[in-house]
């Protein structure tokens, strides 16, 4: 599973990355988590704001910090 956290690097983006990594670890799912900070690459996803979370190419949340429970639901197979 490929997970991307989109965000230039503010505290909300860092918090989102932390939550996503914790959710992955606690779920035992095999996934890579990549932080995307390049604004041009972020723009390719068409998101209105950051932080955003993309899982296997699908945008799951935009402009807010997701809950760990939400992330676990998204990565549940």
């Amino acid at each position, binding site marked *: 599973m490929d997970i991307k956290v*989109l*965000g*230039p*690097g*503010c*505290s*909300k*983006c860092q918090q989102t990355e932390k939550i996503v990594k914790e959710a992955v670890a606690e779920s035992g799912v095999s996934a890579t988590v990549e932080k995307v900070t390049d*604004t041009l690459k*972020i*723009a390719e*996803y*068409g*998101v*209105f*704001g*950051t*932080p*955003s979370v993309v899982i296997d190419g*699908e*945008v*799951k*949340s*935009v*402009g*807010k910090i997701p809950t760990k429970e939400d992330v676990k639901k998204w990565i549940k197979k």
Partner: protein
Amino acid sequence: MVQDCCACGDNIMILACSGGSNVGQLSNQAAVELTQEGCGKMYCLAGIGGQLKGFVQSARDVPMIAAIDGCSVGCAKAILKNAGVDDYRYFVLTDLGIEKNKNLSLNAEELRKVKDAVRATCAGQAAPGAAGIPTVKGGCCG
């Protein structure tokens, strides 16, 4: 598309029908100028209409949408309905007393009327100091 992380004013998504009439183009120009003045940020209605996931999810997650249709045909409204978005501030320019025609040369007084209507409804949601926006609700990066 993406500017500063969590920048103020980004909590209002402005969607204009941008149609091929005076009112469609007034909606577009109002969205452009409101964005330039810091009262929200214009976004791609076409991306939502095309059901591109990043655009649709953005519309679902943004705190506030100001949707501007030129006329009662309601293209922006229909696109948002198809995207499953039903909570937004809605403006129809013909309901503001602007007559629809095919003259694409915009009337400055009509443009001011559109911008004032959006500003009045969205007051309290945009950045402090933005033109015509005296207050702000909530904050930026925590």
